[in-house]
């Protein structure tokens, strides 16, 4: 493959877009609910604060990943559409 070549298979790209969309939908996005018994605590203030921070940070991080996966999925579908419209 060289960078001078541009081509695409629209059907395969649409399939890729669908896979990415599915992956984005399957991501665990919200912060853990810990429905079994409320917020977990160790009794140590510093450790509890660190646990709370990392849980919130991971949830936010996954939210950002989900946004990029969704955008990438959309780009794949639009690129497929562009090549299909262009007759590729």
């Amino acid at each position: 493959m060289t960078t001078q070549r541009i081509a695409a298979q629209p059907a395969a790209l649409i399939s890729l877009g669908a896979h990415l969309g599915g992956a984005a939908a399957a991501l665990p996005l919200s912060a853990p609910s810990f429905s079994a018994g409320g917020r977990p605590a160790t009794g140590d203030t510093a450790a509890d604060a660190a646990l709370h921070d990392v849980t919130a940070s991971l949830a936010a991080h996954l939210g950002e990943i989900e946004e990029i996966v969704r955008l990438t999925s959309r780009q794949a579908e639009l690129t497929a559409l562009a090549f299909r419209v262009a007759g590729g």
Partner: protein
Amino acid sequence: MHDAADPGTLLSASDEHGLRARDLDGAAGTMRMVASGLAAGTLVGPCASRFMTTLGGLATALITARSAHEELADALRRVVAPIAEEQEARDKLDRAERRLSEVHTRLSGLPATADPVALARSKQEIEEAEEEVKRARRRHEEAARERDRAVRALAAACQGAAVLRTLPAPPGEVVIGPRLQETLKERGMRPGPRRAGGHGLTPQELRRIQRNGLSPAAPLFSLLYGKYGDDGALSSGKLPLGGRYTLGHRAFEVSGGAGRIGSDYGARGDFRAEAYALKADGGWRARHLEAGWSARAGGGEVSAGAEARVGPDGFRARGGFDGFVGAKAGVEGSADVAGVKAKAGVEVQGGVGMSAHADGGFHDGKLKLQLSGGLAFGPGAKLTGGVEVDVRKIVSAPFNAIKSLP
């Protein structure tokens, strides 16, 4: 002293982080599968590089997040048992201290004149209770140290998991129309149109160009173009002397657009639909002569088309229509002599139909003109005639003859 720690809650939190790790593992697997699909040639070129970079970064980010959740789940699970044991040891210590206090209270309530045997028994109970408190305190101190160690490990795991990788950038704008050209220029690639004939083109590009005469160098116009084809038959095979037959033949084709058509600019529209129970064709070819025959029976056809285009290598204008139901058979032949190719054909028809076509132009040094017309109402006929003059060949012939003289 109130202890906010609940081993059951910590265990369920560990389970939840473990489930999230498994979900993220599945998402990372999907990302790897998508990337391998792209690597197989689904999308090649600059846009493929952007997609691959993004997908690679996403897979790495998902795996990192999965590892963070796994570490967190493990650290939470490791803290459950030490906390439960410390709480149990503290309960035992509390009970031992309460018993010692009760024994002290009972002893202090005895009068000085009490039975010496009862006094001795109480003092022994106090000694046993004190010994029990000492053992419980030692056990609790060990359990508290163990709990403290596990909680510190959990805090360290939380701080480590918080260090997540930088997220990849999304793949950017869609590669469509003029953007395609911009991408080419941005990457310092050849700005001019690429040559036809397979040089520097991918198989996908070649197929695309063969289908509709497009060039990736003119993406804007490409977007205004479309083509659809369909064909099929119940069975087909070869006939003697190089012919072919098709039973249950059907065809459908539509194309249309404006802008770039091959190397020219113009507009084009076509439509064709055809269905015959039997279709047969054959032909013969020699150096300067060509002859062919065709037959259609048990069906009909309708078609219409128009085209007007002009470019640096010439121009073309054509238009016509066909409508026919019935059976027909025809022959045609052509002869090419000294740069002039004449073509003629006749078709005998039985059915109902009408057709008229005109096609003319100049391209690649060749002047072409072809006319045809037919009419059938019961019996009928269609005549075709055309001429193609290779101007370049005719003009250069005298010079070539002079050059070939000894």
